[in-house]
């Protein structure tokens, strides 16, 4: 009796929660198929704005730039972040370790405005003294993104390594592997899932970033978030709705794919566990 009441209450709360999260996105998707140029006025179903979107060279340039920055950023951030994580966990108590560990996590808590501003100052000063970077754009945005993305990677790798017993690496050494061999044969394969997670996170962070990119970007270099923001500032536009819908679709596919792979791995593991139990 009481139970029935409770479950109805839970059901209602869940519905409200989900509605709060997903109705705005749903509206966005619905309005992207609106024929009318005025966003709030329904003018019938149409894919007109998708056509407009695909014809716009400006949008394509922004998408390409954002993807390029995100990819390069993710690769560099993963390499640097992994090195930092390794240094923090596997190199014992070197001098300045506490300082290093504090510095590496600082970008995680630093307000983006400050990070962006300080990086802009750095690039301007550099140009003054060594003439590089002569033009702000792809390079400067990528560098800026790497500085904060690698902090996230370092944290992920650090926790992965800390949870991994050191005796695997010692066993490899004991069997005759020199330190670099141990790294490539044992450590890296074991932290690979962490590195992949770090890569994906860096990629997403970079695609998502508006504030830092706005600070360190120059004329002509417009990333996707910058483009969306600048267009929406002049009023809601149906072609941006279409663009957002596509992004939502891509993200949804990505999440579903990841969930499916994880589920399959879990099942596989359970099966293997049962197999070993039978012997």
């Amino acid at each position, binding site marked *: 009796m009481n139970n029935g009441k409770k479950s109805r209450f839970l059901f209602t709360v869940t519905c409200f929660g989900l509605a709060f999260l997903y109705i705005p996105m749903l509206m966005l998707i619905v309005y992207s198929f609106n024929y009318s140029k005025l966003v709030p006025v329904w003018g019938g179903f149409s894919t007109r704005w998708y056509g407009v979107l695909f014809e716009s060279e400006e949008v394509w340039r922004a998408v390409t730039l954002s993807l390029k920055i995100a990819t390069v950023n993710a690769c560099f951030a993963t390499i640097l972040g992994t090195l930092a994580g390794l240094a923090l966990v596997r190199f014992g108590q070197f001098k300045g370790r506490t300082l290093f560990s504090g510095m590496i996590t600082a970008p995680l808590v630093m307000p983006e405005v400050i990070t962006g501003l300080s990086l802009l100052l750095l690039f301007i000063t550099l140009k003054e003294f060594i003439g590089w970077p002569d033009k702000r754009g792809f390079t400067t945005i990528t560098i800026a993104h790497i500085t904060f993305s690698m902090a996230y990677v370092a944290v992920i790798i650090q926790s992965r390594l800390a949870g991994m*017993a050191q005796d695997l690496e010692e*066993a490899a050494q*004991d069997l*005759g592997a020199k330190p670099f*061999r141990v790294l490539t*044969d044992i450590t890296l394969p074991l932290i690979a899932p962490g590195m992949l997670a770090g890569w994906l996170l860096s990629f997403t962070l970079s695609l998502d970033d508006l504030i830092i990119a706005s600070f360190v970007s120059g004329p002509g270099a417009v990333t996707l978030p910058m483009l969306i923001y600048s267009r929406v500032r002049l009023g809601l536009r149906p072609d941006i709705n279409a663009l957002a819908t596509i992004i939502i679709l891509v993200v949804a596919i990505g999440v579903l794919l990841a969930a499916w792979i994880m589920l399959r791995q879990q099942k596989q593991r359970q099966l293997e*566990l049962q197999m*070993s139990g039978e012997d």
Partner: protein
Amino acid sequence: MPDPSQYTDRPWMDSDAEPFIKVQSVSKQFGSFTAVDNVDLDIYKGELFSLLGGSGCGKTTLLRMLAGFETPSSGNIFIDGVNMNDVPPYERPVNMMFQSYALFPHMTVENNVAYGLKREGFGKIEIKQRVDDMLAMVELTQFSKRKPHQLSGGQKQRVALARALVKSPKVLLLDEPLAALDKRLREQTQFELMNIQEQLGVTFVVVTHDQEEAMTLSTRIAVMDTGRFMQIGTPTEIYEFPESRLVANFIGNANMFQGRIIENGPDHVVVQSKQPECEIYIDHGLEIQEGHKVWVALRPEKIKISKQAPDEARANQVKGVVHDIAYLGKISIYRVKIDDDTLIEVTSPNLSRPKDGNLAIDWEDEVYLSWEASSSVVLSK
């Protein structure tokens, strides 16, 4: 002239034998904590040597120094005549079997075992041959394509052993090799380990906290406590002739009587014990002055328990009441109350079956305990 071959089983008795592993006044400090405190140790070729002690006694640190994962704070370690202080782990002629087994989770059983050989740069065919031989020896041939998480505990243990032995190391270091196995499997594996060791002639150094394991496996045992060796000797020496109370208590059980030497002859000693009130006659002389305070250790299985009073001698006997009985099937453990503060533990084989449901010796029975003049050990430490 002594025949040199008489020492082949006991190389530590041969003063001419060159130790294979030589630990020379080695200490290891971690900050202000001294894990290993100025120890010396000689281990000979083909020995199965155990480092035995409770947790934190320094046995694992010593083993890790042999493997090269820790460097001594002072002192030298020689293996086969070479000073190991500046030799990194990957160049030492030793292999280690880890307590956690440390199998590489992303490699198959076969690749785990082959890893060491690959690093040495052997050819594909030879690697395959040696890995197959090794897997056959530990009876894991049909599991060669499995990953470690698909194996049971006993199988993992055997993979770890195969991986550590496949490079034919001069010394195999084993860190608590059997601790993760259940009792039945442990007993079985103990004998397998001994067979393999005899078959390959590799020197084994085993770290363990399990005294039974050390007794079964070892040619010699070093009992460790707070970073020092308390005693080094064969299992029999350590069990029958412990040098200190700590060793006597750590290896098996012992009843301890505190007393004073009242008579010290060339061929016998008499100790007057206060608790329980009795005289203990021991059939060999000692280098301890009369009147000295000593401890006498008496193993539970060396005491005879009987309801009949022994006829003659006053020494080496006490009278008490059975306080507790633990029936273990082949033996029973009796705890006999001598006076208000003294309980003596006696183990006795169950030679006859109980008649009409009555035990031969029952609770609250009055019993006499007695022992031979050669049974007790005098300890001054």
